[in-house]
């Protein structure tokens, strides 16, 4: 059995290592280059296509639950007319992180196929678990997706009301907390929050 596999591998290697008989070097070089361009372009196009809101809400699970809820919030309509779409918050912008997240998302394809959250009830039952994934992801990357738009450097706390300014001064600028610690549920409804302490309370009791 093993020798059989080794034989096959050796044969493939011999074909692979032998100079081409039928095709010119130019054809192979240019052809390879073109094929590479096509492959890479296609890959990126497909990646971009899966990174659009329209793709996310092409599943009824996403359209009827998180998207419906997003529509009520300030990240959907606001005075300045800037809208955060699904991938703005849920997909990292850096390439390696993005690919890593996309690989994790294959679990979501599994969920789609087997109808893990194909009714509102199932979605609500699973919401705490799903929310926890996102909270810990944002906690681990220091709320990177929030900071793609909201940076502490460009935050003018004199333009905030005193309450918000104080909180940001105490917890955000000191690096003691990150956005998601306090701003849970800003774009979707929250799951049962029993046992999940708000950011400011957690800080005090930890002291």
């Amino acid at each position, binding site marked *: 059995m093993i020798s059989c596999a080794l034989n096959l591998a050796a044969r493939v290697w011999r074909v692979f290592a032998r100079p081409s008989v039928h095709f010119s070097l130019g054809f192979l070089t240019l052809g390879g280059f073109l094929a590479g361009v096509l492959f890479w372009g296609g890959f990126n196009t497909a990646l971009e296509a899966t990174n659009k809101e329209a793709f996310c809400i092409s599943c009824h699970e996403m359209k009827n639950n998180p998207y419906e809820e997003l529509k009520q919030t300030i990240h959907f309509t606001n005075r300045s007319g800037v809208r955060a779409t699904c991938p703005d918050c849920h997909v990292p912008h850096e390439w390696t992180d993005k690919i890593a997240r996309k690989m994790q998302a294959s679990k979501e394809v599994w969920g789609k196929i087997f109808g893990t959250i194909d009714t509102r009830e199932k979605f609500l039952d699973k919401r705490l678990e799903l929310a926890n994934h996102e909270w810990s992801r944002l906690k681990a990357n220091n709320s990177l997706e929030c900071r793609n738009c909201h940076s502490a450097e460009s935050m003018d706390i004199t333009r905030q*009301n005193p309450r918000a300014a104080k*909180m940001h001064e105490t917890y955000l600028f000191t690096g003691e907390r990150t956005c998601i610690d306090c701003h849970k549920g800003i774009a979707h*409804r*929250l*799951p049962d929050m029993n046992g999940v302490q*708000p950011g*400011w309370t957690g800080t005090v009791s930890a002291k």
Partner: protein
Amino acid sequence: MKIRLTFGALALAAAIPVLASGVFAADAPKVPSGPHPITQDIPAEPMGREVTDDIKKVRNYADQPPLIPHAIRDYQIDLNINKCLTCHDRKNTEGSQAPMISVTHFQDRDGQTLGTVSPRRYFCIQCHVPQTDAKPIVGNSFVDIDKVLGNGALGGGKEGAK
């Protein structure tokens, strides 16, 4: 001449809605979009701006539920979470420096004091509301109790009778 006539007709047509609405709005509160013929399309007046200055407003009477001086857009109050209580609950006030919900909120309807907020007091915005800068549509003759007491001997009766 013909052109002038057309202009005249147009001006008259433009004036009709104004005249009509004048008749309808005679005894109604003065709201631009108030009662008007259903055939007319009256634009709604702009929404009031929320007052979010974090300044406590004086209570008009001792039992008045304090007003909310901050934005509460998207605040979730349901079985899963009460967003208000994440700051105003007893155990969260140290971190948030927000005023704690009053002790009356721990009592159930039989006057029994519970360990946490009573279910009947759970839905904050049944009583506590934010304000906008909208002007009152209807007049109000409410008089502050201090004014009633303080001015009582000094001819406050006139004020109270208003």
